[in-house]
Every structure is written in C-alpha cells, then in structure tokens.
C-alpha cells in the first residue's frame, strides 16, 4: 500500500487494535507514524517500532491539535467500554474532538473504528450496512451509535473525508475480550457455550481488520461517511470458534447451557430488573450520580453467586442473543469498494494466536 511520504496519526495507539495498526503502518508502509498515547508507560509494544509518541487524550482537544499538526490521515481507534458517562465522554465527545481537530489541522481523511454493536444484538439474516442503527440501552453500543450519527452530520458540511469501519468481534494476539480472557476462563472451567455453540460466529482476526483500515486510509474513491462491516468472511459456529481456542490449552470440549433456561433463571430475571431500574434512574433522576452504580452492585453478587453455586456463567441478554443467533452477515461492500480480501484464515490466525499465547500469556 502506498503510504510513502504520508504522515499518519493513530489514536488509541496503546490499545489492542491501535497498537497493531500503528506498528504495521510503521513496519510495512513508508508512512511517518505518530501515535497518540495517554500514558507513555503503556507504550512498550509501540516503542519496538520507529514512531513518534505524542502524549494526549481525545477528551482534551488542545492535545489533539499538536498531535495532528502536519498529518494527512488519522486512524481513530479510541474506544472504551464502561459507564454511560465514560462511553459518551470518550467515544462520542472524543470523536467530535478528533473530527474538529482534524478538520482544523487540514487532515485529509479520518478512518474511524466503530463496531458492529451499532446494529444491536439482533441483526437480521443477510444483514449489511443498510441495516438501521439501534440504541439498546447498553452504554458502549449506544455511544458508538451516537458517534456514527455525529459523523453522518459532520461530513455533510465539512471537507474532511471520514470512513467508518464496523468490525465484528476482534480476536487474535492481545485481544482481551475475544481471546485472552476466554482462554483464561476456559482454563478455570468457567467458560461455557450457549446452546452447544450452534450460533453463528462472524469474528474478525486483528490483522484482517488492520488490512481493512489500511485500505480505508488509502482508497480515494470512497465517499465520505461510508461505513463498512468487516469480518473474516469465514463464518463458523461459536462452538468451532471457542473449541479452537480451547485446544490451545489442551481442552477438547467445553460445557454448554441452553439459552432458554438461563433466560428464565430467577437470578437472570432479578439481574435484568436491576439493570432496567438503573437505566430508569439515569433517565428520570439524572442527578443520582454514583448511586446508579450502587444499584447495580447486587448484580455482581448475583453473577458471582450463580457462578459459584450453579457453576454456570450468567451471560447478559446481549451475549445470549449474540452467541445463540444463526445468521449470515455480508462483507460484500468492503470487498467491492475497499478491495478488502481477508488474508489470514481462521486456521492461520489460531496458529498465530497460540504461538503468541505461549510466548506472552501464562495461563494457569
């Protein structure tokens, strides 16, 4: 890919995806790479490559102005889970700051890393980017919806080109959510399949996603505001996906539980009501502040207790749908417009992940 002579900034560069993107830009292309980091201490992956570290924070607009000076392309990889306040401040306000700073600095293009979560957990079969964005009440997903809507409005009256990528479940080396933590739980015996793992898994290996991002930063024919779903385009069942992970630690089977039973479990019902009460408090009594989180405290006790007594993981509603659903998902748009063609097969990705785990993660 021809990045020669280009200056690029990667936000969220100490994170899982941002770090991999930054080091691949530095090593594989001739781009001049700048990494936005909140804490230099967390940069030991980045410092392996010749790149410039700039200390800053997407919630601090002034720090972005310095970071973007002279930049042609910004890869905006910051994304955070947690409370509504945190998600809105970082994922929405942070994105607004990035767009405004990029426009002011004369940046030509921003590639924004969104998420498949913008469509909610229940994407229809054969879904593609034409699906509606859905607010579900979950902080992370709603903040990503908000950020995408912000981008749609922004591109209408600004010259800055913004391309949105919507990766599914990003796995591989350094993926806490879809690789490291599940494997640790498998080792402890607390990771379970839903409905024997029959649901469809449309995951994306980190290097395939990075390939898509590099294409999005480079293809000039794409219209500003376009969004692209990114997967490995190699669907399998969640059972196959998780068992391939389990094999890395010498396990050949995983326990399973039926989603229906769990949905009707009294603990689940109480759990769900507590969650709704917390959201109701947020909507009707916005000044309750941290009290809303105190309301949620029993949820953690419930989950822990259910895990200890029943030996069963209590997945949230979203996860139950995610892991139980059988559906297809199209990446045709990314293939046609970006020229995206996943280079790393699931088998190859699993081999690399196992090698990385053996070297970097002690699973006890």
């Amino acid at each position, binding site marked *: 890919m021809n990045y020669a002579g280009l200056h690029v900034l990667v936000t969220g560069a100490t994170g899982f995806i941002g770090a991999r993107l930054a080091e691949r830009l530095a090593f594989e292309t001739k781009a001049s790479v700048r990494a936005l980091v909140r804490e230099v201490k967390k940069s*030991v992956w980045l410092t392996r490559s010749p790149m410039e*570290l700039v200390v800053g924070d997407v919630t601090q607009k002034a720090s972005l102005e310095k970071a973007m000076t002279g930049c042609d392309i910004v890869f905006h990889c910051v994304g955070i889970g947690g409370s509504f306040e945190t998600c809105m401040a970082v994922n929405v306000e942070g994105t607004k700051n990035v767009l405004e700073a990029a426009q002011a600095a004369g940046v030509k293009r921003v590639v924004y890393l969104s998420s498949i979560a913008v469509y909610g957990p229940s994407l229809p079969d054969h879904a593609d980017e034409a699906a509606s964005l859905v607010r579900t009440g979950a902080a992370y997903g709603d903040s990503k919806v908000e950020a995408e809507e912000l981008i749609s409005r922004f591109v209408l009256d600004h010259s800055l080109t913004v391309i949105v990528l919507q990766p599914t479940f990003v796995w591989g080396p350094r993926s806490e959510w879809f690789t490291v933590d599940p494997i640790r739980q498998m080792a402890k015996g607390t990771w379970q399949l839903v409905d024997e793992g029959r649901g469809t898994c449309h995951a994306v290996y980190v290097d395939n996603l990075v390939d898509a991002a590099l294409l999005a930063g480079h293809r000039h024919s794409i219209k500003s505001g376009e969004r692209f779903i990114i997967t490995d385009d190699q669907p399998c069942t969640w059972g196959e996906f998780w068992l391939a992970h389990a094999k890395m630690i010498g396990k050949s089977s995983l326990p399973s539980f039926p989603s229906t039973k769990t949905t009707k479990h009294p603990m689940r019902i109480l759990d769900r009501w507590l969650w709704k009460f917390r959201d109701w408090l947020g909507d009707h009594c916005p000044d309750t502040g941290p009290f809303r989180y105190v309301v949620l405290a029993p949820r953690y006790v419930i989950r822990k207790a259910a895990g200890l007594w029943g030996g069963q993981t209590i997945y949230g509603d979203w996860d139950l749908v995610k892991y139980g659903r059988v559906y297809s998902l199209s990446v045709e748009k990314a293939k046609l417009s970006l020229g995206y063609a996943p280079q790393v097969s699931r088998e190859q990705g699993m081999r690399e992940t196992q090698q990385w785990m053996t070297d970097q993660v002690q699973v006890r």
Partner: protein
Amino acid sequence: MSSHIHATDAPLRVAIVGCGAISEQAHIPAAARVDEVRLVALVDTDLAHVKALAAQFNVPTAVSRLQDCWDDIDAVILATPPHVRKSLACLSFDKGLHVLCEKPMANSSAECTEMIASARMAKRTLAVAHTYRFFPNRAYARTLYKSGRLGRMISVHIEQGDPFGWPTRTLYTLRQNMVPGGVLFNEGIHALDLLWWWFGAPETFDYQDDSLGGLESNVRLTLKYREGGIAHFRLSRTCSLKNEVTMQFEKGIVAFPLYEMAGLTLELNGQSKQLVVHTTPWDFVEVAARQLQDFASAAMQGRPASVPGDEGAVAVNMVESCYEKATRRVRAARTPLPGVTW
C-alpha cells in the same frame, strides 16, 4: 577539593544528580543509613521537584546544575538518564569528585572507555550501581561456586519479565532519542552483569529480540561457556514471566526468585535445603546503602569499588554485541508479533 585518599575521617560529602524514581526510592533514603557519607545536595533539572525532595528528606541544598554545588562536595551519585552520564561523570572527575554511576554505565562502550580514562587521570573512584551484586544470597552462592564445592556449571536459566511499570519520571527507557536499546539495555543488564560476575565471558552467544527498528521489548539470549556450560536468558517488558534464576552445577543446584535478596534453594550432594543467608530485614534501600558504603570506603581508601568502571563497561559492551548480532528485520508482508515469528 578532596585528595584521592579521602584526607580526613569526616564523612564523604555527596550530591545526588538526577532525582527520579531510583533516587527517591533508594539512593536518598540509603544515604541516611551510611555513616561514611553525608548527603549535602540534590541536583535535578526539575528544580521544583528537587526542592520538594530536599525538604522531605532534610537535604540542605537543592539545585538544578551540578556546577552550583560542586565546590561543597566530594562525590556524586549519578542517577540521570544514561545519555548524559558520560559528560557529567567526566565533568565530575575533572573537578576531583568520585562517582557512583547508575547502570547502565553509559549509552556505549566508547563512552564507558572515556569515563574510565577520565577517572584514572583524575585518580578518582568510579563505581557502577550493579545493585544485584549486593544481594546476600547471590554473594553467598557465588562464593560457594568459586570455592569449587558446586563443581562445573552445567546450565543457567534466567526468566525476567513483567509488563513495564517502573515509575520513571523522564520515561527515558522508552525514548529512542535517549537510549540505544530497550529491555536488554535497561532491565536485562542486571542479568548480564550477574552472568559475567559468576562465569566470566561466554565463548559464543545467540541473541534474538523483537525490535522492529525501535527498542526491543522481548529478548532471548543463549550464552555458551568454554567448559560446556550454557545459560538461557528470557526477558520481557510486555508480559509476566517466572522471574527466577536456576543454576545447575555438577554437584548441585542453586535457585532463587529474581527479586529475592536473602533466601535461596540449595541442592548439594543430593540434599536440598532452603537457606536464608541474612537474617536482618533486607530491602532495596539496604542494598543501596551497602553499595554506597562500599563506594564511600573505596573512595576514602583509594581502592577500587566492588563494581569498578571497567566491570560496568563489560555489561554495556555485551549489550552492544547483542545488538550487533541481532537479525534486523526487513520490511515484510506482515509485521511479526512476538512469539509468532521471532
């Protein structure tokens, strides 16, 4: 100005230059435990910080330049980032001061050579803070080895790794414009010094790291010794490793956790026992105090310190040799990850 042999029984007047984490956590509190020295000045370019430290630890002088206090001192502890150690050490020797220099002694062996020559010319003591030599368990086991009771070394395994978390103020260890290397240069140099101190120079070695043109974060080093012994060293600042040292000899095994100072496991002639070779409380401040005491005595008596400059230079030289040997990667279709293709 002090003479080569400290003229009086009065304590050595010391300034600490560079007041980051290691000074705050070790050198400054250690000075209070050593009768042979009196800490009279703290020097750091961050004047507000150094003034606050001086107030906290009751040090009379806080300045931003060595020149502002050097008429009132006999010695300096150099705890700055390594890229300025050579110039500050040479300046100190010119002024007739003794120098205890943090590790790595300098950014290159050429700089080390200059420092050693400068110390010799000024007839002053140059000591290097290879602190781990002052751990009582290392010293005890080495004496045992050197006495011949353990026999020939068969193999050594050293694993050292934790996600980077040192509370550095300057972040120099992560800045490519301030250091010539990463985890081997900064954290791994202790193990290199340990291996040299015990077994001398290796006959051959193999080295691999994960640098992509920047500072390495993961290292594998294998050293082969003349008598057939082999040492394996795995080092990381991205992941947690066992952090232990295991040495197998003809007649026994010595093992200790990497950061353990007093305890060790000793298996000798088929019998295994847990030993604690020092019963008083032992921590990094105590280690720094013993090191400072050794330095002060050396300066006062005109003898070399336990870790003189030329031994500090050996470790820097070994790091350089490793970097020269590293297979530098060329642009590839896809960037390698540690453990995947390195």
